[in-house]
Structures are given as C-alpha cells and as structure tokens.
C-alpha cells in the first residue's frame, strides 16, 4: 500500500514547483498557474491526512471541498484583474505594473 509519507512528499514537490513559478515568472497568467498548483498541493495533504486517520474521518474532505470552491472564485477574480491590468497597461508582465510607484 502507499504510505502517508509518499503523499506528503508529492505535495512538497508540488509546493516547490509552485513557489518557483511564483518567484520567477513574470507573466501574470503563469503566476496564477503557480497559485493554483500550490492550492492543489495543500488539498492533497488534507485528503491524505484525513484518509490515514484512525478511524478515517471525512472532515478533511469537507475542507478540500471549501478550498476548491474558494480557489475557483480566486481564479475568476484573478483573471478579471488580469484583463483589467491588460487594458490599463497593455501588458500582463507583472514587472511592468509600476503605475503606483512614486
């Protein structure tokens, strides 16, 4: 059977990939990809820990349910913001979004 550690390691790897994208990428849509990947890494942890409780408990799955809904609306608002930023800046490069800089 698959050990709990395996799921944690997969989740840590996904978190690493997400943090890399978050810190390096300049395209706003790519940064949104990275955020979604990080949220999914957290979701795997919740689902894994709740399955390996003794006796198994569904509370973790409820939290993942909320998390999926929350990240869906985060994506909707984020993409709307990217569209507005593109309209204002005619670019989605986050390093060029310096209109508020004094």
């Amino acid at each position, binding site marked *: 059977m698959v050990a709990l550690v395996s799921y944690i390691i997969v989740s840590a790897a996904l978190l690493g990939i997400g943090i890399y994208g978050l810190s390096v990428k300049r395209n706003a849509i790519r940064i949104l990809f990275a955020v979604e990947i990080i949220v*999914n890494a957290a979701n795997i942890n919740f689902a894994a820990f709740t399955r390996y409780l003794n006796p198994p408990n569904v509370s973790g799955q409820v939290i993942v349910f909320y998390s999926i809904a929350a990240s869906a609306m985060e994506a909707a608002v984020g993409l709307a913001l990217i569209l507005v930023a593109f309209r204002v800046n005619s670019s989605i490069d986050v390093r060029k979004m310096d209109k508020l800089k004094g």
Partner: protein
Amino acid sequence: MEIALAVPPDAVFIVLTTITLLAAILALQAKELIYGAIALGISFIGIAGLFILLDAPYLAMLQIAIYVGAVVVLILFTIMLVRREVGEEVVERGERGEGAAGLWIAGLLAVSIAGLAALAGPNLASTPPAGVLSVSELGPVLVTDYPVPLVILALLLSAALLGALMLAKVER
C-alpha cells in the same frame, strides 16, 4: 467507496505522481501559454486520480468539474482575449538570473518539508487504516458540523462573481 483495482495501488500512485509533477512543471515552463494551460489541466486530472486513491471519489469529481471544467477553460479564454492584441506571449526576459535563485528557494523548501516528513516517516501510518470513507458521510458533516462556512462560502461566491463582472465590464 471501495474501488477494485486490477493493478497494485503503488504502480497507480507512481504513474499518477509522475504525470502530475511533469505536467505541473510543463505548465510553468511551456513556451506557449496555451500549452501551459492544457498541461495545468492534465496536472489537475492527475491530482483527481490521487483523490480516487485516497477514497475521495466525490473530491475527484469536483476537481475535474471545477478545475478542469471551469478554471482551465476560463484561463484559456483569458489567454485568447489577451493574446489577440499582444500577438505573442509576454517575453520572459531577465528570468535567467532569477531562475537560479527561485530554484534554490523552492528546492530548499520542498526538500526540507520532504526531509521532515521522511524523518517522521516511522511514526506515520504506512498503510491506510481499515474502514472506508463513503460519499454519503460527507453530506451530513457538511451541513451539521460546518454549516457556517458553507453559508459564508455561498456569500463569498456570489460576491466574487459580481466582483469579477464589475472588473471585467468595459466602461464607455
């Protein structure tokens, strides 16, 4: 829900993990943004497979319906809206120097978490305890144990929907 697998779960886990991680890397590194979005969808499908292995078929369905069905499609539409005028993807210049630093930060973080987990490994369960999580247990817990978050989530969803509409509206 018990799902009878013809192949051992270990093999399924390794295949799903490989698909998920490679697709996640491809989502960030693909030259074309549109291929990146498709790779992100594949990565989400791999995570849905992991949910099925974890006795959470409802979450797997939710993952495919919401992430693959809604979020990735939304991202694809946005890419098409944005790219039509730029013509090309944002040129990601100057990422070379930052790439190494980002890789170090991310690698250090991931390796330290994985190392801690591996250190705690002997104390963690190596096999899932007996007993089966069923989908029918989820509903009562959702509405009896966590009713307030559910209502807040509903309000938040409608607020986010209205906010996204307001933001994306073209003023003339």
